[in-house]
């Protein structure tokens, strides 16, 4: 462990400081009591533009992104840069969708995407499917945040499971105590640290490595030397389609994740969301520059620890920064993991409470009971995520995250399209979900990864040749699965109509989708002005 002492001390001090903030957060913008889901799980639905920006930013741009995207760029080059178009396309796409979701959720007091589906399509079964999809897709995502912390700890020479367990126990304790207020408050510190680190990295590291042209030159030389056809500093004819569909598919998936919805619903009004959709891309700039750290690692001749590609960025920091600043950088990554992990576990807990507990176990649950169940569920979810990492090979959790993206995309027809049209029959949507889910998992199962010898679930780039097409092109499996889902849902709807199958009742009205703060039908907004 010698040689890393300064790094460790700085890391621990920052980590403890931030954890303290998490506990104090319960008093921040204090509510009458935290014993309701609106307060514990949505921070009183009162967040303004700034807090929402930090919260949603902290939510979407996770430690894992900051570690894994550069790792991907390090390994494969241009393909890894898909994160940039992905995070550009997402905001204009979500712009109109999310304000409608906000409005209808506030009029009807909805907390989760599955709540919305329940009201819109009058189908508890469909809502249950959406809720389970959300929980299953979120779990490996939380586990992946731990992979980020683990990579940092490994680089500092800290091994064993105990430090990871301690970090997670602290996280669990303050989320339990403060709810969504904790990550919202910590997000400020996290972002300040990450911005500091990346700005220093972007300015300082190139001067050490012979400037940007030297960095890109080193990357090109490395990829030219490998026999693999899919890498390189530019895309080739065969991976362009995958690049584009992966970017678009990931963008469509992101705001279907329950934790993104949680961040959005916690905002005060529609304009806060709109303003954020134009300001959030600033993070994409950060992400794009972070991605290039992968090339810097190549130019700096950094080698990952073992086969763990996620350690390249921490190793790069360790190699080029003075010890104390490397400590700050490591703390930034670790704290960056805590914010989304907290929000994700809250979102998963809300789903369980609202759409499983209240729907199937205790129909007459009070607000206080709902909040209590959510708090406990958030603990269970986090313990589950921790076990994931401790018991299963971390590489496997990355595969699971891949599956998570594909399956959450299958809720798009019900949730996102449902916000615009009630044309689909609930039976059709259920059939579409089954079809898309089946197709997606089948495709993923059949993708091998020669790099690490996995025969199944190797990546999300599905070779079109497996469909009998004479081409080497690949496509994002989630995208194809969504197409199957939509086709089945449309056919299913026609069939259900022809058979005159009973359709659920729509509990919403057109005007619900445009309601804004100040509208008498919008609840829960009076006591939110205590800024």
């Amino acid at each position, binding site marked *: 462990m010698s040689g890393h002492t300064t790094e460790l001390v700085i890391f621990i001090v920052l980590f403890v400081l931030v954890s303290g903030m998490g506990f104090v957060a319960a008093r921040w913008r204090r509510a009458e009591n935290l014993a309701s889901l609106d307060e514990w799980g949505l921070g009183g639905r009162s967040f303004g533009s700034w807090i929402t920006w930090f919260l949603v930013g902290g939510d979407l741009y996770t430690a894992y992104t900051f570690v894994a995207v550069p790792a991907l760029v390090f390994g494969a080059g241009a393909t890894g840069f898909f994160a940039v178009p992905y995070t*550009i396309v997402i*905001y204009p*796409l979500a712009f109109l969708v999310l304000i409608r979701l906000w409005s209808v959720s506030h009029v009807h007091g909805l907390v989760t995407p599955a709540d919305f589906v329940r009201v819109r399509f009058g189908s508890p079964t469909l809502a249950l499917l959406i809720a389970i999809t959300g929980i299953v897709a979120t779990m490996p995502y939380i586990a992946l945040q731990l992979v980020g912390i683990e990579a940092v700890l490994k680089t500092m020479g800290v091994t064993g499971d105990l430090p990871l367990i301690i970090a997670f126990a602290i996280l669990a304790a303050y989320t339990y105590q403060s709810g969504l207020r904790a990550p919202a408050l910590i997000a400020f510190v996290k972002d300040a640290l990450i911005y500091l680190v990346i700005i220093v990295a972007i300015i300082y590291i190139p001067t050490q490595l012979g400037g940007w042209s030297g960095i890109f030159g080193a990357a090109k030389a490395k990829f030219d030397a490998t026999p693999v056809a899919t890498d390189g500093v530019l895309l080739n004819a065969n991976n362009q389609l995958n690049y584009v569909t992966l970017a678009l598919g990931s963008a469509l998936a992101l705001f279907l994740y329950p934790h993104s919805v949680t961040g959005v619903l916690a905002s005060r009004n529609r304009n806060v969301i709109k303003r954020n959709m134009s300001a959030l891309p600033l993070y994409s700039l950060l992400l794009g520059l972070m991605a290039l750290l992968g090339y810097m690692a190549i130019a700096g001749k950094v080698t990952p620890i073992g086969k763990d590609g996620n350690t390249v960025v921490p190793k790069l920091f360790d190699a080029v920064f003075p010890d104390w600043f490397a400590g700050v950088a490591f703390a930034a990554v670790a704290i960056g993991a805590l914010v989304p992990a907290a929000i994700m576990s809250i979102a998963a807990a809300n789903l369980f409470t609202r759409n499983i507990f209240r729907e199937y176990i205790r129909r007459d649950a009070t607000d206080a009971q709902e909040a209590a169940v959510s708090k406990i569920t958030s603990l269970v979810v986090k313990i589950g995520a921790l076990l994931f990492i401790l018991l299963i090979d971390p590489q496997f959790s990355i595969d699971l995250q891949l599956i998570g993206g594909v399956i959450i995309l299958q809720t798009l027809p019900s949730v996102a399209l449902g916000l615009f049209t009630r044309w689909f029959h609930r039976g059709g949507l259920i059939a579409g979900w089954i079809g898309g889910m089946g197709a997606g998992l089948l495709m993923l199962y059949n993708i091998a990864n020669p790099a690490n010898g996995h025969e199944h679930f190797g990546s999300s780039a599905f070779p079109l040749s497996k469909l009998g097409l004479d081409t080497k092109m690949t496509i994002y499996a989630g995208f194809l699965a969504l197409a199957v889902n939509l086709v089945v849902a449309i056919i299913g709807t026609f069939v259900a109509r022809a058979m005159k199958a009973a359709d659920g009742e729509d509990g919403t009205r057109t005007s619900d989708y445009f309601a804004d703060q100040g509208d008498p039908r919008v609840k829960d907004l009076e006591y939110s002005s205590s800024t």
Partner: protein
Amino acid sequence: MATPQPGRSDRSPWNWLLLIPIVIPLLPFLFNHAEPTLFGFPLFYWLQLAFILLGVVTTAIVYRMTK
């Protein structure tokens, strides 16, 4: 139950502007080239980073116009 501002809706011609930052970043033939470079960045990298600005500007315009 009061229903204020009847006929209120999301519809606005300005929304069509949102298509620009959705479509442009998904056209690889625009940016999948090494030349011209800018500050040592191949076109592939600097142009895609520049698209972020395009996204910010268009969504900001739509927000202002539909506020």
